[in-house]
């Protein structure tokens, strides 16, 4: 199963991506979480706190034309094996890094190596059984520039605001242009059934799920904690647990025998 999580800023992409990654790992899957957002998010939602590391800096080199590329001899599998970090529940996290005061320039090696890794993942045999959960930045740009060619599902996270819905529709249109990609809309921070209905009407599409507005999720955000660690029994986690099962069903992969569910931890 390979998914990319997209949406407008503040919709809750990182919380959805990080929580789903850990829930799927708890269901017995090997999970790689990919963070291609230059803004902080996924490492916090996974429970690692803020990480700025340019993880693929040592895996990048310049070619004869001065362009960054993955070092010769390093493929996607080796990049993941050597340069990803371990997150809770056994999830591996790979990110290209977060800009400091100097901007993006110091990250360009890691960024280009990351892009190449993302493009090789789907063809890498040793990773073929892995679940991949990508957290993309706000807006449609990375979907348009093919930053998640590995993804079979694009989960568009939508808040109950017009701006969020309009962004989601645009991102959905762009993502659908990908080969065999399924676009699924996930309503987040939903206050009730009327929100859900209004969003489905405005999106002109059915919803994968509705994740309720949840004070526990807000408090986890304030504290910089993973939702799963702060409020494992919250309504938002329960809704995302259902999403994890639904994604398994839609991908045709089913649950992993003998896997532990959220209540086992």
């Amino acid at each position, binding site marked *: 199963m390979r998914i990319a999580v997209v949406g407008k*800023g*503040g919709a809750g992409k*990182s919380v959805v991506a990080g929580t789903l990654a850990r829930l799927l790992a708890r269901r017995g899957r090997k999970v790689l979480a990919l963070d291609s957002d*230059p*803004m*902080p*998010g996924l490492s*916090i939602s996974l429970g690692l706190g*803020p990480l700025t590391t340019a993880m693929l800096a040592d895996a990048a080199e310049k070619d004869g034309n001065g362009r960054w590329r993955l070092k010769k001899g390093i493929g996607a599998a080796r990049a993941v094996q050597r340069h990803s970090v371990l997150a809770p529940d056994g999830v591996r996290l790979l990110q290209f890094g977060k*800009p*400091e*005061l100097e*901007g*993006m320039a110091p990250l360009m090696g890691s960024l280009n190596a990351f892009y190449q890794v993302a493009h090789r993942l789907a063809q890498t045999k040793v990773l073929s059984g892995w679940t991949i959960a990508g957290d993309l*930045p*706000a*807006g449609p740009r990375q979907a348009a520039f093919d930053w998640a060619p590995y993804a079979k599902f694009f989960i568009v996270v939508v808040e*109950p*605001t*017009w*701006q969020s819905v309009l962004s989601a529709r645009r991102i959905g249109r762009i993502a659908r242009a990908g080969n065999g990609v399924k676009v699924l809309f996930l309503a987040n921070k939903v206050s009730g059934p009327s*929100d859900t209905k*209004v969003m489905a009407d405005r999106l002109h599409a059915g919803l994968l799920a509705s994740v309720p507005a949840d004070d526990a999720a*807000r408090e986890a*955000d*304030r*504290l*910089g904690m993973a939702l799963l660690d702060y409020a494992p029994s919250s309504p938002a986690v329960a809704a995302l647990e259902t999403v994890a099962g639904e994604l398994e069903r839609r991908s045709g992969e089913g649950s992993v025998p003998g896997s532990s569910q959220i209540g086992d931890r």
Partner: protein
Amino acid sequence: MLGTLESGGKIVVSDLEAGVGTLTRLQPGHVDVVLVVVEPSAKSIEVAGRAADIASRSARVVVVANRVRGEVDVETIRARLGDRDLVVVPEDSSITRADRDGVAPIDAAEPGAGVRSIIELGDRLTESAARPSS
């Protein structure tokens, strides 16, 4: 573009994209004030701290603490950004409703405390812009 606009007697309000990308390209004189909008979440505060540091190299910075529900939220933001000029915009159901309905919050039938705070901020900024610089 911001650097080439004539500003005499006019006010330009520019809504920049999320993150710090545009800010890193801002030069002194392009804008007078950068409003760094921050929510009481660790991720938002992390970005806002970086944005304020970058923006302060080229403009006056005002931090706008948005969707604040109480003193705990304010203290969480102050812990990283407390030395900055800070304006608090309370959580406001009239803004939530306006966002949902696709209308401008300032046109809401009954503007709440959040809208009023933004109006006060606007007044404050226009007053300071009208004052001759020393």
